[in-house]
């Protein structure tokens, strides 16, 4: 589904990604772990199409197409979803109207008719339960005045409604207490299926206790220096990032 080859990305004059390779197939959950500044969030932003990043080399294919040919909205319409590390507050834009517009834009791309208000509400009610979303948040401005946990929950709720093919969760665990983390993780777990791929970007192993990944990759200084299964994350937790970094140097 997603193939990243030798991706090199620069922000202004600073090289952040220095030749990153990754292949993600439908049905898989990949965790990308790394210390601060390793390039995790840059990877997530570049995949979603945020401005301000220069791709200096390499290629990313999504379903066989050059991802960089697509605008952020086209990526979203073709099934890519980014759950933001810092969801943006947008005063005056109604949360539920945005979600309805998003869903109908995606449906239009798929050649499906828009959902009417009643049908949409049915979808919303069903998906709200997945993340234990408070109904009062639906009619507020997008993320405005939401607590940290509510913002992250709202992201996963959006993901549940939009049913992406490729979901990228950027540090969704940061700032969550353990109960909120469990709720969010359960929501994500119910969204796992054969046709959907999920990429978890995280600093800590903690999230992976609740969302068990198929693959774990360690990102350091702009490259994936080690890949493995879930046991790699556990080992990382015990020994720290220095351990893999040294291992990589020795190799």
């Amino acid at each position: 589904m997603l193939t990243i080859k030798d991706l090199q990305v620069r922000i202004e004059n600073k090289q952040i990604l220095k030749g990153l390779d990754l292949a993600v197939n439908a049905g898989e959950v990949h965790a990308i772990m790394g210390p601060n500044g390793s390039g995790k969030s840059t990877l997530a932003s570049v995949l979603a199409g945020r401005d301000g990043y220069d791709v200096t080399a390499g290629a990313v294919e999504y379903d066989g197409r050059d991802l960089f040919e697509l605008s952020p909205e086209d990526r979203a319409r073709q099934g890519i979803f980014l759950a933001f590390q810092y969801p943006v507050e947008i005063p005056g834009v109604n949360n539920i109207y945005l979600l309805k517009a998003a869903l109908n834009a995606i449906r239009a791309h798929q050649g499906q008719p828009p959902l009417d208000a009643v049908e949409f509400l049915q979808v919303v009610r069903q998906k709200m339960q997945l993340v234990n979303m408070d109904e009062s948040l639906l009619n507020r401005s997008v993320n405005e005045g939401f607590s940290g946990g509510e913002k992250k929950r709202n992201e996963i709720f959006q993901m549940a409604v939009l049913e992406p093919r490729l979901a990228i969760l950027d540090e969704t665990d940061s700032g969550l207490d353990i109960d909120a983390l469990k709720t969010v993780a359960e929501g994500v777990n119910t969204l796992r299926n054969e046709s959907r791929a999920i990429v978890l970007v995280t600093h800590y192993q903690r999230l992976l206790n609740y969302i068990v990944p198929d693959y774990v990759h360690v990102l350091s200084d702009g490259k994936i220096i080690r890949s493995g299964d879930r046991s790699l994350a556990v080992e990382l937790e015990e020994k720290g990032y220095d351990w893999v970094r040294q291992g990589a140097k020795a190799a």
Partner: protein
Amino acid sequence: MSEAAVSHYLAEYDRFRDVLAASWPAQRRADALEYLKTHGFPTRRAEQWKYTDVSPITRRKFTLGKSPGAHIDDAPVEKLRFSRLNCHELVFMNGSFCAELSRNLRLPSGATVCALQSNGNAELLERYFGNEEIGHAFTALNTAFLNDGVLVHVPDGMEIPAPIHIIYLGGREDETQPSSMSHPRNLIALGRQASASIIETYAGIPGSEYFTNSHTSIQAQAGARLDYYKVQQESRRAYHIGRTRISQQADSRVDCHALSLGGKLARWDIDAELVEPGAEINLNGLYLTSDRQHVDNHTLVEHKQPHTTSNEHYRGIMNGRSRAVFNGKVIVHEQAQKTEAHQSNANLLLSADAEVDTKPELEIYADDVKCSHGATVGRLDENMLFYLRSRALDEDTARSLLTYAFADEVIRDIRFPEIRERLEHSIAGELPDTDLIKEFMQ
């Protein structure tokens, strides 16, 4: 230039003096003409007019026309009415009252809402508005040429539940006629503990050139409560100068909603004074400009006594090659301890050629007060844009949505849903690509 303009208006006055409203004291007209002769029209050398050149107005020989208020097409009036809102509605065309288009003018007994022409109550005028200073060339012009307008008087303790809507429609259908002018005057007096809601709408025949020079005076006695709306949506070739003066006594509250959407050149001054403790004023303003429009908003709030409060929040969105001015001044006088005054002005520039001059001013002579002010000028937030696009909204829709949301912030708390919806609709009509965001505006 100014002298030629003054001579023109003096000559116009001589032509029309006999048909102007008899109820307005001749002495006040004479004083106003004298003021005009002495001071002339302002130039950009005057600090108050530094960013706004009125010569496009003074250069043109606007006239009252052969019959002041000659009838124009009434179809535009229907669009301006609040169809689903029960209100008292007074309609004026080129400054003259149109009884047949006005409606629901029956009010609770004791209250007065009428056209100035039909009010013989000189005592009422004198009592509330007898000693207003002129202070401003366009106020002088309005005072000299005053022909019609609205008198609202709500006696002590009375609430008028239905809003009072005043529609001023300007312009002409026959473009071979000289451009017309009108000088509407609104006099609003609320007695102790009285309350009312008043909406002034200024509009015109699309594409028509004319000049509206309006003046509203508001007196709020102790404990009075006024919701005041002014919607300026003149033709894009029209000139609009407006001034609203507000004087508030103890514990009175005025909520003012100021929308500037139309006009080629528009200037609006609000001068408010809080003259007794406990008075509170809230000023919400929105100005939208595009093409080559020039819109200037000046506000002055004077805290003259302790425990007075003002909150001012103005927003502007500029597109095309337009230019906007915001000048908000708050003066806290020496004896006005425990004053609370907050002011903010936020501006959104949609094009590289649009301009805004913003100048919040705070003069504080008391030492125990809570005051703040601030101004911002910026473009659409890139993080918000990206967030919306990552949720499958195309870029034009995302931009339109954020722009509309920025404007809507000013009016979304208006308490009459019918008024809010109409204003939202008017705003949407002035902003780019709002057809893309209809489903967000229900």
